[in-house]
């Protein structure tokens, strides 16, 4: 299989937590402008792999490559400095803060003495949301006033705003209904079309087969299949996920 140079990749990652070998030989790579779906049964190690790419977990073995260079990440701040950000399964937004404040949390624009440049922040947030085609009733309302789909869209927009390399999404549609899941899937394509690499964990196979360019299957901590999405069907995928090995195309 021929690959363009990946913007973010994991090579032969192993990771053990106590007695649990979460990852044995896990690899994944994402090129610029590409949506790669990471699928696998529960416990296959998908979230662990993504956390390794973010520097939240340190791998016991193997390497993480960002922007073509092997990197040793010791925390999420370092991944962020390399242009990688994430949308987490458990939606990492502060519900009491406004949309704007959430989008800038950790990246606040300030003048002297720590005063926030709220106007600039609002304008930039509005622009980022507009570029992604996301329209919200107001950017000043607390995030807790938004619907689940709106919140997830804000989380994606936040990650995109601070990423120059790749956006990692851990089950972004797990809590959403069908219509809102379609919207988030469409949003992934929009993000990729901006030249970012998108890595998404998903259980929603029919939808992700349509949205992703490439599928990587993890099985018990091991990468068992990397294939263009177009070459796969849902039954193929399910079979691979539960452990029937297939020759990769």
């Amino acid at each position, binding site marked *: 299989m021929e690959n363009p140079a990946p913007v973010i990749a994991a090579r032969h990652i192993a990771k053990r937590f106590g007695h649990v070998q979460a990852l044995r030989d896990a690899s994944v790579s994402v090129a610029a402008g590409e949506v790669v779906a990471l699928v696998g049964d529960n416990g296959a190690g998908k979230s662990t792999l993504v956390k390794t790419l973010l520097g939240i977990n340190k791998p016991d073995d193997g390497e993480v490559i960002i922007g073509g260079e092997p990197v040793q990440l010791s925390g999420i701040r370092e991944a962020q400095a390399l242009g990688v950000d994430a949308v987490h399964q458990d939606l990492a937004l502060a519900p*009491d803060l406004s949309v704007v404040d959430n989008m800038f*949390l*950790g990246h606040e624009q300030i003048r002297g003495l720590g005063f*926030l440049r709220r106007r600039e922040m609002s304008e930039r947030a509005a622009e980022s949301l507009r570029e992604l085609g996301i329209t*919200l*009733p107001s950017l000043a309302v607390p995030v*807790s*006033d938004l619907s689940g789909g709106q919140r997830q869209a804000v989380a994606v927009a936040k990650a995109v705003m601070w990423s120059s390399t790749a956006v990692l999404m851990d089950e972004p549609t797990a809590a959403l209904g069908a219509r809102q899941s379609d919207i988030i899937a469409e949003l992934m394509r929009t993000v990729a079309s901006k030249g970012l690499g998108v890595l998404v964990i998903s259980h929603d196979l029919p939808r992700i087969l349509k949205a992703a360019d490439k599928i990587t299957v993890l099985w018990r901590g091991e990468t068992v299949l990397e294939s263009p999405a177009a070459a796969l069907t849902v039954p193929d995928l399910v079979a691979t996920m539960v452990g029937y090995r297939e020759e990769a195309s």
Partner: protein
Amino acid sequence: MSTSPITQGIDDRAIGAVHPVVRWVRTRAAWILLFDIALFALFTALSRNHVFFSAANAESLLISVSQILLLALGLAMMLGAGIFDLSLGANLVLSSVVGALVMKSFQAVPGDASSYHDIPLAAVAGFLACVGTGIVFGLVNGLLIAVGKINSLIATLGTLGIGTGIALLIAGGSDVSGMPTALQLAIGLNTIGIVPIPAIAAIAVAILLWVVVRFTRYGMRTQAIGSSRVAAERSGIRVRAHLLSLTVLGGGLAGMAGFIDLARFGSTALQGHANDALGAVTAAVIGGTLLEGGRISIWGAVWGAALAIILRTGLVILGVSAFWQLIVVGAVLLIAVLLDRVAAVRRTRSARAD
């Protein structure tokens, strides 16, 4: 690749623009202010010769408010990030004892309150000792909570006992007195107009913190941590350092309140602060600062502190037993928390309705 706008799919709940005045009236702070005014009017009407409405009473209300307010402001900031502090009253007392002992060391003749040779220097040293002790107390709390990962309620319950014990030990069991009279005249009992200096200091702190909460990164991050610690951590915020800075701030303000004791009474008040934590929590929570963290209302704390003091003073003037005052303040606190509950349940229901 272009996409169709996501508008229709996601924008499924309209939120209309609201006039700022309407928004203000809807805030808890506004309600508490109105309640303050109503109570003030009620006590004025009920008090003999309407003495409640007098310059002397206003002055006494304001000086009483200043200490509770300093504690409530610190607590509101800490609550904003999800830290509960039960030890503020103990901190106040310990700080005042240390400050008093430091000040007394400036007496030329030990034990003679008229023998201070450099009163301004003694006062400054006493103030710094109070605030410094408060900061150290807060730092200890912060280390226990942020680094030791002890639940803040338990950590500060522990330091409440330890701090009170240390204060009693180093004070020798009785109040430390003999502060320079000039200190009382210049600060504790001095006023600008009818506003006592300690109240001016407390109000200045309130304004400063309001600016911090409303307009700065520090205020935003504080509420972010209380709202979702995970979100704050994932956004790259140094949460532990931030929590430490908050307990140090709260401790420093408690130390400042301790100095007010010395400036006001010329001595410590070991027995006078047993219910301060209750007053501070009442003030902050009644004012709309969320116990669960994530939302700080500085003006709410100001009007909440005023409410606690108006109630207390009003009941005194009406001749109601001191025991009843405790009951009333406690009941008001519970009513405020119940109101929060009702509002929270309503919020959850409307969120589920999506």
